[in-house]
């Protein structure tokens, strides 16, 4: 490419490894450079709103990337959903692969970890699902809220919660501490509103060749393959 450029991209923390791998391929192919800043989506939004030098914003939901467009910082027409998170029920102790609903109904466990329904889409969807299948009241007293989906996962990994709704991506990663350990059950996508993770280009990034190129690159089959490999759906 004639003009190599560097882009600063804010990315929701749960997508860290996936996007780093995509980034590497992208850099190799295009010669552009991408630098990622990770963090909780809400915090990234607050930073962008207060002038953070990000060229693009990959959120963990749709709400906050769209809100940047409302604020006049994001470019609405560049918005797209780059991945859909999948919820899985994981436990090292209970036979959730076969009997997920029975385990939830009996509720013998002490703690069921979910992400904070108020701030994290994974948590919100998990809670909604429990309500939908009528199990919410039974487990309500045992819910513990991780600040993010990663935090909920830590509760499960460290045995503090025997069972938890986590992201599929955390289970299928070969580096994951629970990779091929314990049991999990993928909650059917039909049971909950998709966890759309939206990306948007900022005004600042509009003139950044690397940023625009990267936005496009994420839509290519090569990128989609990586995203799917990490346990996300792509529309």
């Amino acid at each position, binding site marked *: 490419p004639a003009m190599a450029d560097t882009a600063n991209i804010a990315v929701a923390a749960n997508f860290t490894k996936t996007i780093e791998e995509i980034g590497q391929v992208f850099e190799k192919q295009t010669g552009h450079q991408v630098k990622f800043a990770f963090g*909780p*989506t*809400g*915090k990234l*939004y*607050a930073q962008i709103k207060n002038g953070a030098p990000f060229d693009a914003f990959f959120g963990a939901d749709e709400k*906050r990337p769209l*809100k940047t467009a409302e604020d006049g910082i994001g470019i609405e027409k560049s918005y797209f959903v780059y991945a859909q998170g999948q919820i899985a029920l994981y436990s090292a102790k209970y036979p959730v692969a076969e009997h997920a609903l029975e385990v939830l109904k009996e509720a013998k466990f*002490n*703690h069921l*970890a979910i992400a*904070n329904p*108020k*701030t994290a889409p994974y948590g919100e969807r998990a809670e909604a699902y429990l309500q939908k299948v009528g199990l919410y009241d039974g487990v309500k007293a045992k*819910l*513990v*809220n*991780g*600040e993010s989906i990663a*935090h909920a996962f*830590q*509760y499960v990994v*460290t*045995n*503090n*919660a025997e069972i938890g709704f986590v992201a599929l991506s955390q289970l299928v990663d070969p580096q994951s501490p629970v990779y091929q350990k314990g049991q999990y059950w993928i909650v059917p996508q039909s049971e909950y509103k998709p966890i759309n993770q939206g990306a948007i280009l900022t005004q600042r990034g509009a003139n950044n060749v690397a940023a625009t190129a990267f936005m496009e690159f994420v839509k290519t089959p090569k990128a989609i393959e990586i995203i799917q490999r990490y346990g996300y759906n792509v529309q």
Partner: protein
Amino acid sequence: MLELFGTSVNLAPIWLTLEVAAITTVVLLLLGTPLAWWMAKMRSSNKVVLEALVALPLVLPPTVLGFYLLIIFNPTGPVTEFLRFFGFEGQLTFSKTGLVIGSVFYSLPFAVQPLMHAFEAIPQRLLDAASTLRASFLDRFFTIVVPLSQRGFLVAATLAFAHTVGEFGVVLMVGGNIPGQTRMVSIDIFDHVESLEYDQAHILSAMMLIFSLCVLMLVYGLNRRFGVKVG
């Protein structure tokens, strides 16, 4: 729930925060006092190591400390097993107990350092005089050392309390953010920021700030006024 400037504020996290901070302060004073006394009287070079160890929580990012506490406190982990042995039931994480233990770790230097300095400043002669007046060790401690270290205790208590109130990482990691049980103010503010409810965040922050400023001013004021001069 409280209506303030047209925004409703949930007061439960505030009460919880005050409760945890109060318990933590008490525990810290109870544990920190003998530790500080021991360190104050130490002569050997071990004292340096101990001082450094006590100061260590200052250096660790609280989230990291919290992460390790999660690992250590897990229900099948050694600490819980150890406590089980003494009849402890339940779980350290996701409970007030866990919050308090985490906070105790985190705020340890703030309690131990002022106490140690206060103890070091007590003239040996006064303790000697009490000895000749037939006061035993504990007797001397409560009738001479404690009253003469009240400044130290005051500072230790305030700093420990303030630091626990302001604590975030450890509480977030270990607590599980269970409304009414482990959701403290700092997390609440954080959640409000995350979910774009900036008004609530501002109000809560302002309340905390004003409250803390009042407490600190009270303490520093008392400190100046009724500090007993030793001499």
